């Protein structure tokens, strides 16, 4: 038996968790998306879940994703926040402190869940079994965003920014002079297109290659690694690890 319950989507992790726990008592599979939460008393196929959406014609399929709520990621987030805080306490450089503060706020606001490697595509799910898994019991988040219009720039930058996406533009064109002098990585940035793959894009004068970011994607400028302080590298690694598992319902 399948039961549908549509409720207002709450973007914050805490609120969502509280909301879905209540449903688990009476349902095995709970899937939340931008349109609300659906509960199923038995395993349900991905194609069936997708078929319930009334906006499939507007979905930007390259950035769709299926996520499972996982407490492990909260441990990583806590570790990342702790590292940022620890570094913040030790720095006496105002721009760097500001970048760390922005990053901390950003990370706190992220909705995290473990991303499935299965491509979410309504056509593929109806054609091939491997793209149409039966969801075992648990809480899931289904991201079916519409095409974005902006690119987010964050990390070791003077100020995080939401920039207008330009078709066919190289990643470099979004960086401008935003990279934090002395602390921002100059050679490469991470490109997150919300498609289960983080691209390490070379952007310096010596290694530049044309890499594009998709509409609604993110550019994370890493902190330059220091042989004297491993915390910069740790922050980069944790951000990269968490960014893949960041749930976005709208780009």
């Amino acid at each position, binding site marked *: 038996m399948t039961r549908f319950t549509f409720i207002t989507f709450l973007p914050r992790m805490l609120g969502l968790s509280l909301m879905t726990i209540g449903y688990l008592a009476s349902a095995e599979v709970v899937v939340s998306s931008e349109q609300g939460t659906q509960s199923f008393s038995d395993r349900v196929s991905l194609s069936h879940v997708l078929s319930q959406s009334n906006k499939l014609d507007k979905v930007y399929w390259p950035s769709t994703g299926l996520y499972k709520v996982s407490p492990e990621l909260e441990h990583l987030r806590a570790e990342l926040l702790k590292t940022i805080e620890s570094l913040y306490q030790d720095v006496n450089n105002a721009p760097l402190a500001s970048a760390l503060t922005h990053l901390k706020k950003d990370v706190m606001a992220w909705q995290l869940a*473990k991303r499935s490697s299965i491509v979410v595509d309504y056509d593929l799910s109806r054609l091939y*079994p491997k793209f149409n*898994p*039966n969801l075992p019991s648990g809480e899931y988040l289904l991201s079916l965003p519409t095409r974005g219009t902006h690119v987010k720039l964050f990390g070791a930058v003077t100020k995080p920014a939401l920039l207008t996406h330009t078709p066919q533009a190289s990643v470099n064109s979004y960086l401008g002079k935003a990279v934090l002098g002395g602390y921002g990585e*100059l*050679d490469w940035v991470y490109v997150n297109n919300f498609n289960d793959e983080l691209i390490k894009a*070379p952007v310096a004068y*010596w*290694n*530049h290659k044309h890499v594009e970011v998709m509409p609604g994607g993110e550019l994370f400028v890493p902190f330059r690694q220091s042989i004297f302080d491993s915390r910069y590298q740790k922050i980069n690694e944790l951000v990269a690890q968490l960014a893949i598992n960041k749930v976005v319902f709208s780009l």
Partner: protein
Amino acid sequence: MSQFFVGTYRKCLSLSFVFLALFTLTDVTADELNLNNSSSLMVHGGTGLIQTPTSRMLADGDLRVKYTDVDQYRFWSATVQLYPWMQATVRYTDVRTRLFSSSPGFSGDQTLKDKGIDAKFRLKKESYYWPELSVGFRDFGGTGFFESEFVGLSKKAGDFDFHLNLGWGYLGRAGNVTNPFCSVKDSFCERPSGFSGLGGKIDHQRFFRGPASLFGGVEYHTPWAPLSVKLEYEGNDYSQERAGTLQQDSRWNIGAVYRWNNTRFTVDYQRGNTIGFGVTYNFNLHSFKQVKFDKPKREVTPANRPSSNTEPNLYRMTSDMLYDAGFSTADYALGDDTLTLYGQQLNYRDPNEGIERISRIAATEMPDSIKYYKFVETNGTVPMVETMVDADVFIEEATHQTVFPNIERAFSRGDISPESLESYDPENTAGFFTGVETFWIQTFGNPEAFYLYQGGLLFSAGYSFDGKTSVAGTIKTTLLENFDKFRFTRDAFNTPLHRVRTDVRSYVTNRRTTLENLYLHWHDRIAPNTYAQLYGGYLETMYGGVGGEILYRPVDSNLAFGLDVNYVQQRSYEDDFSFFDYRVLTGHANIYYKPPFLKDTQVTLNIGRFLAKDKGVTVDFAKRFDSGIVVGAFAAFTNVSAEEYGEGSFTKGFYLSIPIDLFLLKSSKGRGRIPWIPIARDGGQPLIRPINLYNVTEARSPFAR
């Protein structure tokens, strides 16, 4: 001069099928793997400009073969990027202006040939403020025409790649700067001449000594993508060339490289008076692959799962496993909740793929009450490794009941369990077996001709008494060869060692059909993780006798070790069955180690007594690439001095081991091995045992899969 070496390239299927399949080979180019890499090779092989090397590396796993023609010299080279930080080049040089030897009776009118080996190590990667830093050693084998060392810096800016190097030896012969080490220690001011031993040794006492030069240049990748141009300034003055003193009108050289798919064509203008050209072909050892037309993996769906009260059809299941999944079942046991199958995987070199395919068939035949599938891989009837499949987990994965697919989590490998051993009772284990293989023997750089070859068929047959004990033999028939060009079968070197290998020419030339081997063999698992074998008879082309081996090899362990002991007598080359008087007790302690800090690498040590009664160790270093191709090198260090050993000073060689699967349109196991042994004499020579336990037990901790 190179001595004879024997390399066989064997395969199990017909030649015509293999060559047909060759045309469908696909590979992904290096640059697709590594966007940052667009370096080209220098004339001698190895990344560089024209005559000068640079600190640049190729993409990991790149193998580039190159031919270059520069007036007096011709070069054939192969450059391989073994690790992202290490590049190696092997090269043959043909000197057109010199004869191979002054004796026409020895080498006719053949021109001078020399081989060379280069190695380059990256010490630091390029970054925003720092150039790439590498150190290179060229032609370091002792008699090298181009022996030199260099430290190089490379920095890219846009489409320009700038290079600056400091070189010693051939590369620094012009001496345009003071050797910086000379100001630290006087011994660095002069470069010792000659070479130690009888060549073939690494003469580290000459490294970084003598005149030094700065050299370098720039490579510009033009807006027309296939074309790049090069400009370089040399540090060599061509005053001491093997081809004689060459006129150098300018130290500036220019060149161009045109890329067409995986092939690069080069043309250059050198020394202000000489035009050179070359061609390079590139493929990547990691991504090299072949399209396959295997049967698709069986889908497991609720519809094709048997109901709980269905009697399993074991005949249909094992038959499907053979034809659809390459698993030949020798025995089975069906318990209350466990199915155990004993047999051999014949087709799939990736153990997990083989297990997945047969598990899918088991899942569509076995009822829900069977919770475990156990597959015991055997060799003959000797059990090798047991893979336990958790049926519930497997079916969950196979029927896509998870959003984090990972079918391998259902598999667990281990040594053979006591229950599996107890219920193992294979039937029909006695019988005849036959086989046909091709062989190809080749040797480069001989005085009679640069390339000598012999090819033909190996017919093997035998009788297995119980899957553990057998009698087997091989007859070798030559079909194609140019060994009739041999002018001698024994070289003139007055060696104090018994000629345990250097008479090999006599063994491969006097008859077209010979008895390669004929022996009685037994092998078994004698204890947990421990295997043993005994053998006796005509063991290889040159030796017969008796021997035994024991090997301890835990499943999926980085370490295995064992011991082999043999008492053998040298076979006569005059007929197939008689012996010469020479007898020797030979054997080794064998250690196999896969260091966790070097990806897909295996180091093998064979410590003991060799055929010439010399004592020492053979070190073998093998690197496996993702395609399954293995590149290896070995060297034997024994108590035979360089003078006693003769040319080359000690036994060493390289090899390429290639999965046959890469040339076939259907998945297949088996490998071909192409060795390159520049010089092989009598010291450090092991017995070539007909069966090596480490190969037989490969399934326990696969390296060359």
